[in-house]
């Protein structure tokens, strides 16, 4: 008798070194819609790349942007219009932490840091995290928030 989930679940038998959890593989669509030269199909983001894209999406989604989900996202862009200070940087860290803790169960946050570039009027954001269930090294993502003119 076939599994009700069909052949969807292809679990990697990887055991997390610290939590003892097993992660499955993750497959997400790439929004650049480029073509895979071998399969001629759309490029697929897998595992840590898919998660990295998800983290970036969550941080850069503005609150109220998602239809019928008005609380998803952060107010990161609004900080760009405040005075650059450690206070606003801390608020930005809290907002990023909150949205990732609530919406991305696949990661465990290791560190979030924000460098305030007062002269350039931007913030440089570094996010470090572990992927729960994968024995990979700490993942990091960084991006610069710039006020659009």
């Amino acid at each position, binding site marked *: 008798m076939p599994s009700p989930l069909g052949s969807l679940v292809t679990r990697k038998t990887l055991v997390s070194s610290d939590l003892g959890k097993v992660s499955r593989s*993750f497959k997400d669509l790439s929004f650049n819609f480029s073509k895979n030269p071998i399969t001629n199909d759309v490029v697929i983001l897998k595992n840590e790349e898919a998660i990295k894209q*998800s983290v970036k999406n969550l941080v850069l989604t503005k609150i109220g942007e998602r*239809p019928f989900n008005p609380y998803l996202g952060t107010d990161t862009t609004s900080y760009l219009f405040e005075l650059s200070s450690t206070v606003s940087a801390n608020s930005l860290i809290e907002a990023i932490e909150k949205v990732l803790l609530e*919406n991305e169960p696949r990661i465990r946050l290791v560190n979030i840091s924000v460098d305030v570039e007062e002269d350039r009027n931007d913030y440089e954001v570094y996010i470090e995290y572990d992927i729960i269930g994968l024995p990979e090294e700490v993942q990091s993502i960084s991006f610069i928030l710039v006020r659009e003119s």
Partner: protein
Amino acid sequence: MELPVVSALEFDQLRSSIKNYIRTKTDFTDYDFEGSNMSMLVDVLAYNTLYTSYNVNMAANELNLDTAVIRDNVVSIAKRLGYNPNSYTASKISVDLTISNTTNYDIIKLRKGALLSATASNKNFTFIIRDDLEIAVRGRSSVSFNDVEVIEGSDFAITYVVDESNEHQRFFIPNNFIDSDTIRVFVISDPTNNTEVEYTRKNTIVDVAGSDEVFFVEEVQDQKYEIIFGDDVIGRKLRNGEIVKIQYVITNGAEANNIRKFNFVGKLLGAIGNVEVSLPNSNLSWTLNSDYSDGGSEFESIKSIKYRAPRYYASQERAVTLSDYESIIQQIYSNADLVNVVGGESLTPPRFGKVFITIKPIVGESVSSIEKQRIVRELRKYKVGSIDVEVLDPTTIDVIAKPIVLFDPSKTRNRDFNIVSLITDFIKSYITGIDFNSFGGTYSDLVVRCGIKDLDNAIKYVNVPIYLRQLVDLINKVETEYEIDFYTKLKVDSESEYYMISDPFCHSGISSPVFLAAKSNCNQDYSVNMYTINGRFIKTVGEIDIETGKVTFTIQSCQNTPINITVIPEILDITFGPNIVPQMVLLQPIVVDSIDDLNDRSQLLDDDQSRIPTEEILSISADGDATAIIDPTSPPPLTVLPGGSVVNIPVTDTGTGAAETGPIVSDENNIATIDDFTPETNPYSCS
């Protein structure tokens, strides 16, 4: 494999449906994580599907008369049923004008335009005539214009030039407040000689030939009207270059109804040959043919269109059954609120060949005589030839209520004035409901009390005492038997002095005002008695059936004005008769937050609160018969009886202690010795 359900109208349902579909595939797995690209794509898909479903659902609703909510769509569906919704209609009144000192003129003219002006509710209204009126003098010293119908509003016109190269050319009237019955269309076929040919308005294509100069009127978008011309098969088609002139009246509708006082503002001219001179208004005398202006109404509402259109279609523009009459009346008299049609064959005794139509107008107390004549005239186009139609005014019974409410202020933010406001709103809503506001409507004490109780959880006690009042039109100087029916059992043991009482009125042969009444409590009987205004009994003039609520009396009044008959109902759930429209009069409610606020506790706790305001009723001014010889207010003279004796009226000396010296009556019970005797505490008990 589960296919996505795209008919849901909730975003979450659609989203989970799409997710379930993707779950059956192995290509992507991240749809469950809000941050993933796939989740974003699912959101966009669900959002798109939601609005597609919503639009399809709303569009489907707008295709049916029952579910459509946009007026343009309701009107469009009604048009398919042959029903043209009523526009604003102008209020009208008929007037007779007489001009004197006319011998010096050949012709007397009344210019079209404003004829009368009036002010009502701080707003000015102008009543116009739409054509010049002329009358030849022929040597007479005075001439008259009779039955001149003036309508409220202002005359406007718009002109189009027919352009056949524009296949989308349409002839709109660019105003919402027009009376569509006033539309006139003139076509100038040859611009060189400006000869205007007036086209005839048609509502159906029956008997319309290809060459007939006719037009049709339809309501189109945004409550505007369009003039439709023929196509040379049904009516004459317009030719290129022809000039179309559309005249119409913009009106204030029902606001100009019920106006009784007017000023003449018309332009009167006397013509001698080709010379015209203005005539002074001192040469003019004019009289209104009805008491007040009537017939104005506003746009037909969506609710009304939905109700009337299918019924109008069912009547097939023929008045055969009673419901045919009802639907056609609504069409030809748009100010109708309620219509009741009774066939003469169902009356006792039967009156074959007659149909009685009772109309309660939306604005105004009754339909004016000129409008009644117009309705009868209009009905000739629909009715069977041998049927005679009579339009009647409805009989109304006032239900006068004074709610008493006790509430706990600690359980609500509402204060007493808020609760009074809530009660007023509730009663307004109740009296417009179909149960109450209809011919043969029902007043339910239970519904009213429960409705008030439900207004606020803090309301602990509700009592709604009522009394009933019905207007009787008196016939002057003619002895007439009147019969009125309250359709409920009457309460005879009320705390009022009378359980039935009339307003004071003038009665022939009696020099002071009189009133009719029936005593309550110990003195009660089932007679209608006539009293002078100071309470002196004159005679019995009728009787009351307290079980059915019928009151009959025979009197000869000396006034034309109607009087009210007031009674208290024993049973508070009343179904009125088929020709009766109940109306409710709400007196100021008593709302208290503590029982101690009341001077008399029994005022609140006693269910029996219904009282007739006797003093208030008897304080209404009325005249006596100025020609009367006998003054009934003086004691009747002693007369010699047939046997030759004279009635002796015993006189009791109450000031000299005669009772003490009189004979001692032996009282076997010797009531003075009974220790446990308890006197009656209820002064209204008859024991």
